[in-house]
């Protein structure tokens, strides 16, 4: 039988819910967005590698050039 290629993607164990999935310390912090009652959700995961990943709500594009009109 052909040997299975080892998993190299560090996120695969997380997705599979193995023991490693419990290692990152994650939290959601929800903040009301005022009049519209929208919720802004921050997900900050401080992993075992001490990397902080941020996912926010906001426009993707920056302005190109602001000319006077």
């Amino acid at each position: 039988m052909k040997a299975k290629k080892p998993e190299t993607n560090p996120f695969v164990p997380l997705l599979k819910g193995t023991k490693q999935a419990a290692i990152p310390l994650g939290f959601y912090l929800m903040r009301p967005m005022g009049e519209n009652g929208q919720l802004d959700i921050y997900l900050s995961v401080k992993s075992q590698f001490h990397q902080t990943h941020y996912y926010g709500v906001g426009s993707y594009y920056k302005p190109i050039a602001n000319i006077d009109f």
Partner: protein
Amino acid sequence: MQPPSYFRLFSACIPVQGVLHALLFDLERKSFYKIPNLLAEILDKTHQQSIPEIKAHYEHQYDEGIDTFLKEFESKELGFYTDEPEAFPKLDMYWDDPLDIQTAVVEMENTDAYNLENVLQQLDDLGCAALQLRLLSPITAQQINTLLKPSQESRLRQIELLVAQFKGDAKAAVDLMHSNRRISLFVQFNKEQKQLIETSDFVGTIVHSTKALPKAASDCVSPNNFTFDVKLFSEAHSYNTALNRKVCIDAEGYIRNYLSHPKAYGHISNKQLTEVVQMESFREKWLVHNDQIEICKDCPYRYVCLFNSDLQLKNHKWHKTERCGYDPYTDQWQTTASTPATNQPNQ
């Protein structure tokens, strides 16, 4: 029960110190508050120290002020008290983007000067996401449709269309927006009166302006143009947000960092954009961010503004060759349009 001894700003609420005062930016709600530099310093300390420790650091001179401000920040939902400060780390200001080129400005006066279809194809190859197309000659909706046809299959997501003289009526403009959904902004210059047209029929905005569209028009910096966005804010810590990942082609077809910059990196007819954007000299100014530029480094707006001015290295210090209307040393807005630096005081 003891109240929590640590205070944390929400991660998208970030204080920035300036020479006269600081600003507390709320990047999510797109607003900012003017605060004293001392308070920004105190807020910075909240990442390492508890409130009692901070009060002791200042020998209890500011206890009342610290309590008042922190309560105010809590009531404005800018921050919160906690006993678990390590659970709320600072936002990482590392920035990167998969696109080789994010934005482009292309100016056309004479459609024979260069091949726009070829330019759009090259921009697509570079992953360009947003294009500002400036058309300086009188043009019809049909001609614009023909020019933009190659963009319909491209990776471009947003097109700003600036037209010096649009030869068409209101219906033609609306139809143009309908058939080119990537157009987010369509400015028609030299109109008799100002007008703003926004309808639910299309996503973009049509603007009628009484002003002229000059060749290689410079940027206009005003508080209305500030961008409150985590991505831009973090980019501004390591890159020149205006010039980074941008390429421009002027009306004659010369490739530049920005239209108003004197240095050209070849002509689009005989130089590939892919080749130009890999040139070290073309990329040099991408890396010069506001913290490294004289005057800008003292400005509290330095992470939210976008100004395409050229840069000059004098005595090992970077300067912008144009001045925006804000003077951080007096906290005054002088004018909304950028002007050559040589005409401005307080250089």
